């Protein structure tokens, strides 16, 4: 791993960081229990036609709280444990994280919305991870996750969520996108290198993006591109993902197209040896504040995930609209979801050829446009494509994002594009999208429709 060593040194020269003993870390990964690797579970699952893996969300400031959360999850028969990172750490603001962690520990009050992994350090955290001996998935939202990922893998966390696009455009206002690509290149390499020692480290892209009226074509393109960036660096196990969109059929179509195209593009770059998985997020948009309703929504998400044929489902809780969910609420969702998966049987195989064809053409056209960018490397092509609006993510807070594409829901709640902006949606696909919508409304009522469409689950 000498290649990375110079960059590594810079990253680690940070007052809040554990002194890393890389030899020891390598040794640890080499001899780590296979159970800790989600890639191992995915392998078993596809061998035995196993059930969908269930992964909740959850991160608390203190070690004690996180440990207690895991105990609850294990009782509820969890498949994959989450480690959600607080938002200061996500913005590399370890100083504030440290301060808030101390306040949380002293005051019996949560001053952080997740687990500040860097401040806790890998030596401490590893104790917890190996104690439970379940695969852990790192959820963060960090553009510069280099230090975080080093700490995570050293802790025994062998699935890393995120990517330069999906963790930047929804999660940041002005972090430089080009830097993000380079930082993530580092992350991919670290994952690829460690993958050689035992089971592969799984990388997972964050398909939900802003969870707000993102059309499936944009989601899929970004999933495919992050997959390619990752496989290029040697990653051998990758999960594409998306979240519930509001229409069961659109979800099923999205699942079919993303699976097909992920395989296609992995082959195109000579990486058909990598295994690709599909992850489905329960509804990620604005939740109902009525907790009973939230549970209905969550259950419905599970049913749709099954229809989509996901390999893993990431859950929400009845408390989503209220604030960071309690461990009880989190564990309840896991138990409920497992029950639902157990009793849900006789799923039909649904295919909508027309919708699949349209979506495939949209994705191909955007991918084509990205590849046609004159830059020399894939990440630069993507960078340029985002900058010039070939890729445009609705409701991204990031300054580089064009924010020109406008989407609304049709009568069946499919997300449809009514203004392409600069995204190269082919003419007849665009006509198809618009044909489902009422475009004779004035601007005010379209704005009202959009507000309504954001809140459809409330």
């Amino acid at each position: 791993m000498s290649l990375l060593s110079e960059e590594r040194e810079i990253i680690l020269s940070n007052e809040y960081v554990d002194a890393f003993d890389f030899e020891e870390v390598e040794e640890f990964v080499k001899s780590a229990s296979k159970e800790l690797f989600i890639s191992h579970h995915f392998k078993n699952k596809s061998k035995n036609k196993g059930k969908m893996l269930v992964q909740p969300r959850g991160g608390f400031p203190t070690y004690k709280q996180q440990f207690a959360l895991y105990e609850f999850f294990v009782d509820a028969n969890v498949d994959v444990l989450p480690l959600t990172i607080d938002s200061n750490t996500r913005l590399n603001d370890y100083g504030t994280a440290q301060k808030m962690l101390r306040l949380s520990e002293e005051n019996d009050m949560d001053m952080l919305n997740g687990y500040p992994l860097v401040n806790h350090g890998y030596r401490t955290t590893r104790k917890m991870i190996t104690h439970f001996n379940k695969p852990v998935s790192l959820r963060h939202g960090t553009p510069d996750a280099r230090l975080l990922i080093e700490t995570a893998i050293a802790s025994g966390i062998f699935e890393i969520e995120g990517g330069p696009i999906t963790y930047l455009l929804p999660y940041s206002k002005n972090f430089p996108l080009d830097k993000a690509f380079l930082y993530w290149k580092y992350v991919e390499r670290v994952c690829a290198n460690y993958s050689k020692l035992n089971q592969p480290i799984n990388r997972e892209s964050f398909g939900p993006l802003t969870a707000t009226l993102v059309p499936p074509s944009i989601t899929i393109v970004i999933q495919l591109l992050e997959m390619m960036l990752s496989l290029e660096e040697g990653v051998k196990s990758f999960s594409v993902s998306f979240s519930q969109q509001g229409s069961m059929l659109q979800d099923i179509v999205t699942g079919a197209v993303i699976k097909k195209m992920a395989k296609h593009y992995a082959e195109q770059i000579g990486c058909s040896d990598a295994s690709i998985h599909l992850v489905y997020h329960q509804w990620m948009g604005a939740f109902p504040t009525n907790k009973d309703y939230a549970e209905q929504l969550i259950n419905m998400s599970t049913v749709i995930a099954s229809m989509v044929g996901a390999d893993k489902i990431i859950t929400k809780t009845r408390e989503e609209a209220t604030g960071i969910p309690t461990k009880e609420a989190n564990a309840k969702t896991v138990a409920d979801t497992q029950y639902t998966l157990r009793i849900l049987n006789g799923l039909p195989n649904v295919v909508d050829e027309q919708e699949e064809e349209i979506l495939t053409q949209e994705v191909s056209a955007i991918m084509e446009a990205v590849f046609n960018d004159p830059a020399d490397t894939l990440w630069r092509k993507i960078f340029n494509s985002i900058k010039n609006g070939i890729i445009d993510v609705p409701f991204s807070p990031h300054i580089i994002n064009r924010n020109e594409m406008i989407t609304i829901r049709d009568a069946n709640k499919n997300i449809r594009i009514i203004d392409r902006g600069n995204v190269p949606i082919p003419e007849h696909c665009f006509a198809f999208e618009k044909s489902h919508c009422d475009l004779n409304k004035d601007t005010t009522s379209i704005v009202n429709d959009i507000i309504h469409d954001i809140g459809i689950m409330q």
Partner: protein
Amino acid sequence: MKVVTGVVGNDIHVVANRLMELSLHARGYEVFNLGVNTHLEEFFDAVVETGAEILLISSLNGEAEGWSREVRMLKAKYKDLDNLVMMIGGNLTVGAGKADEIEKKYKKYGFDLVCHQVDLNTGLDSLEAFLAQRN
């Protein structure tokens, strides 16, 4: 009337912020939207720069508590902000909390109007009621 608005701290939840801008416009305010990820100083700087009478802060991701403790201290550093109407809304605590306790706490921090998990338009209605009463 001039309003400065934005989302405080490292918070990037932009959806309510976009809607807030639309709503304020529709109600006839002159809006200076600093967007997400805005730190306290930036808010006060913008108020001074624009001469706004209202500062409307959002917080969604649970950070508000941490930042708000510094509001009084910071505000004291600026001159002429005594008449500034200060309002905050969104999710004002990490985890679940009781709205009335939260309100009390934030009033102590220096806010005139506190809208924990209150709908945008309900909140703006109460702002207008407040302004009417003050005059």
